[in-house]
């Protein structure tokens, strides 16, 4: 304990938040022996006494810290010590061979987290210490996920009915700890948000870290829509917030990514494209996985907003994305309906998992547009009037389109359905012109029958 508090003092004296947070890490992979030593340095009572001594009576320490704040830290280290006990036990590292469960670890860590939050609300912690909140939140989420997994592996311990709902809630039972964790993270978020201190000393600097953790949790809980509330609160308080650009880049990239995906899920593709593009530009070029994630949503966005497809070169560094999108892109480009349908079916499971299936499906419109455009081009030119540039044949019988669709899609469509699909093209501005139903022909615009494609 002595050594730990010495580290604390050093970090505290230098006001280095990250170093301070390091003294509170529960990560066993880094220095298991160190954590074990901390745990073994005494029983609950002696640890309490030690901490009291170290924070209040130790003459060798020269920390300028109010009694209030000292009490806060003392409590934090005590709960940290307790949580370490559970963590070491669940990993089977304790010398006394004690066992534990992830649920217990989660509860212990939650208490630790509450203690840190209390530090800000009751013990006047300064804002440079926020990295401690980060450590707390980050591991709390991990432990919650493990606790849930552990419970479901054990066949879901049915504990007593705690709520009086008429129906059981399958989601709650599956994600009990994580849902609880989301509430705790929300507390962290509010702790950061509600600080009214001047910006230089405000906890608002912690807000994006907290939000990103919350988003991550909400997505995992399958309730991404809850993130919207966070965004609402954020935009309401935007005036009092530090400039977005002055936050660390890593936090900005993550935030923009989530903001983009949220807009994407709401089918607001223009907005989504904006955020995702920002994320894409800021993302570190070696963060392949993150780049891949951003592209997973950015590519479908582009397909719908600008009807553009990823080039082979763009996809080159991402074999996984190639597998996802390449076949589809080729089919769209060729106007090959059958290939498109096949590619969509082949990738369906993965697309659905990534929530891009319903978006990609709309790419069929573009494939169809390209096919119809081919028909139009194949129609050649009408007889040019003397002295004028030749004009393409703009009156195309529905039957010609029908034949093309049959060839490309492999299934026979009746004339009404073909007309319906043509009407759609016109309605969506993918094709300009009109259908003369009685005569069975499509009259295409003389200038730009297929907007944006050069004809």
């Amino acid at each position: 304990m002595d050594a730990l508090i010495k580290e604390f003092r050093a970090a505290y004296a230098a006001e280095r938040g990250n170093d301070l947070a390091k003294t509170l890490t529960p990560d066993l992979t880094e220095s298991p022996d160190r954590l074990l030593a901390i745990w073994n340095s005494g029983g609950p009572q002696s640890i309490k006494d030690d901490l009291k001594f170290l924070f209040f009576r130790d003459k060798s320490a020269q920390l300028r810290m109010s009694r209030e704040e000292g009490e806060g830290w003392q409590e934090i280290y005590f709960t940290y010590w307790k949580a370490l006990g559970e963590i070491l036990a669940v990993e089977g590292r304790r010398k006394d061979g004690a066992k534990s469960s992830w649920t217990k670890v989660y509860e212990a860590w939650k208490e630790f987290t509450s203690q840190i939050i209390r530090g800000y609300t009751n013990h006047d912690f300064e804002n440079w210490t926020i990295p401690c909140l980060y450590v707390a939140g980050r591991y709390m989420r991990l432990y919650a996920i493990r606790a849930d997994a552990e419970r479901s592996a054990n066949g879901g311990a049915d504990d007593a009915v705690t709520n009086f709902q008429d129906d059981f809630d399958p989601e709650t039972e599956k994600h009990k700890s994580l849902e609880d964790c989301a509430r705790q993270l929300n507390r962290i978020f509010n702790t950061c948000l509600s600080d009214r201190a001047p910006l230089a000393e405000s906890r608002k600097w912690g807000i994006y870290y907290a939000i990103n953790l919350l988003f991550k949790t909400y997505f995992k809980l399958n309730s991404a829509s809850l993130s919207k509330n966070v965004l609402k609160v954020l935009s309401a308080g935007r005036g009092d917030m530090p400039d977005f650009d002055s936050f660390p880049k890593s936090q900005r990239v993550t935030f923009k990514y989530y903001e983009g995906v949220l807009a994407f899920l709401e089918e607001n593709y223009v907005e989504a494209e904006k955020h995702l593009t920002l994320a894409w530009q800021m993302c570190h070029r070696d963060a392949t996985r993150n780049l891949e994630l951003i592209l997973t949503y950015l590519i479908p966005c582009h397909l719908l907003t600008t009807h553009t497809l990823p080039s082979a070169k763009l996809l080159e560094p991402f074999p996984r994305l190639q597998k996802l999108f390449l076949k589809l892109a080729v089919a769209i480009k060729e106007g090959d309906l059958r290939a498109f349908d096949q590619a969509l079916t082949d990738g369906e499971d993965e697309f659905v998992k990534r929530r891009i299936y319903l978006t990609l499906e709309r790419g069929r419109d573009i494939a169809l547009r390209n096919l119809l455009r081919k028909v139009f081009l194949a129609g050649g030119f009408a007889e040019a009037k003397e002295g004028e540039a030749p004009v393409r044949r703009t009156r195309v019988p529905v039957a010609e389109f029908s034949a093309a669709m049959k060839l490309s899609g492999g299934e026979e469509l009746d004339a009404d359905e073909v007309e319906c699909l043509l009407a759609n093209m016109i309605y969506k501005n993918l094709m300009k012109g009109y259908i003369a139903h009685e005569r069975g022909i499509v009259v295409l615009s003389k200038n730009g029958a297929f907007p944006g494609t050069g004809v």
Partner: protein
Amino acid sequence: MSWTSSVPPPPGAAYGYSQSAYPSQLPYFPPSPVSGSLPVALDTSSPSPQHPHLGLTADANRTLQLATTAFTPVPVRTGGFGQPFAQPPHPNLYAAPANPPQTVNAASAPGSTQHQHPQSEQKIDWPDSVRSYVQRSFETKNLIPGVSREEMQTKLKETISHARDSGIMYTTDWDNMPLPQVLVQSERLQALTGFGRIGGVADAMERAQSQPTSKKRKSSDLSESNPMTPGRSLKGPSLQDRISQPSSDQSSGMDAPLSAKSKFQKQAEKRQRRFDGGYKSTYRSPSPPPSTGPVVGTCTDLEKRYLRLTSAPKASMVRPEHVLHQTLDLLKKKWRKESNYNYICDQFKSLRQDLTVQRIRNDFTVSVYEIHARIALEKGDLGEYNQCQTQLRALYAMGLKGNPVEFKAYRILYFIHTANRTALNDAIADLTTADKEERAIKHALNVRSALALGNYHRFFQLYLDVPNMGAYLMDMFVKRERLAALANMCKAYKPDLKLRYITEELAFESDAEAAQFIIDQNGQELLQEREDSIIFLAGNAKFLFETARSEAFRRVDLKGQI
């Protein structure tokens, strides 16, 4: 033209739906046999009469028979709650409401299960679980101050003999059965708070005999002055009911003596009463310590009003599974006979609640939710429907039997209606490869993709041929899709279209209906009569339908969304 055959004339059905759009069978109730464990004599001979209910077909009638026959000999109370049934007035009926031993009373009440005494003289081989239950009852640490040993013993006897008589001794979960002292205590509590049920003659007798001193309560004093009101608060209109919506039979018992008082006074007294009850309940008996397992019900009433739980459920207010089986049969029968949705929905909710608090999750649970979902669907109660659907999804995921294909298909259609893309995505993610080959699911997926690609032609063809009860769901969004299609057509077609073409493409039942639809959108100028037909001037519509379309899509009803 082929249109006459594909668009049949309106069949004049009560609901005004096109026959072709509706399934010829509405399988409300799965034809599963009624639980064989019921000790009720089965009268299998009497076939039920054909009921003129929409979609009641041979298949459904078969289940109706089962439903009816499972329950014939029991005179069922009809018409809701607190209804009087034959019961001789007892002078002391309301004198001593404290401590009614309900478990047994309810079982021997004439209204529920009258059939179980013949074997009571036999030698009984007591199961170990019962022995240990008895043992536990007498353990000092389990004694509750205020409940005397005699009371406890009486209760214990009652409980066990009831279990023996009704043949549930071997099925009862004795390890989780509340101890007799706890039962006594909770019954007292109920009597005090007005949750007590008066099950019938035996009940009333016992009530009169049991405790001479009563914890005073206004309603009992009142009723003493008016002992001849036989039906009052027979089986539980709860406290809340009585406070918020006194029904006619209650008013005879409770409000009549007060009739001279002002409304305000009455309310004040009611408030006082509520206060008394609430106060005593917390003061006299701290709620029993939470038992380790879920509650096991002991209530044998078939019907129970739905009340949202605000505290841990009491065993005496909860019906065990075998009773719930009978309840379901009764409800099925009543639904066919009376089609009173408010009543049925209320009953199903309490049924679901009883299942939940006892944590019963089995094939029976599935059938309860399925039936409620179908009824809610027919009545357009999407909120309830969605609750059932959410449960069903989880229940199927547990591997329970039921009709997952049918409901997975509904689920897709439902999320199309609510335009919930995230949920729709999840619904698709739930499907297995085998699921996707099922007709109903294939149909729902096709509906989805037709809409996603704006293929209204295919969409309306799918609308004309919906498996199961999917048409009820499709009806919810067919109007907005018609608007969308018209918006589409008006932009794409020039100069005009025959009205008949619209009728066919958008699956209207007749030209008249199509014309009416257009006129309803203020599109009368777009209709023009020519020599041989009516023409729709698509090219002149401008943004008429476009505006209506975006309006319709904005108002997606999200009621009951979780």
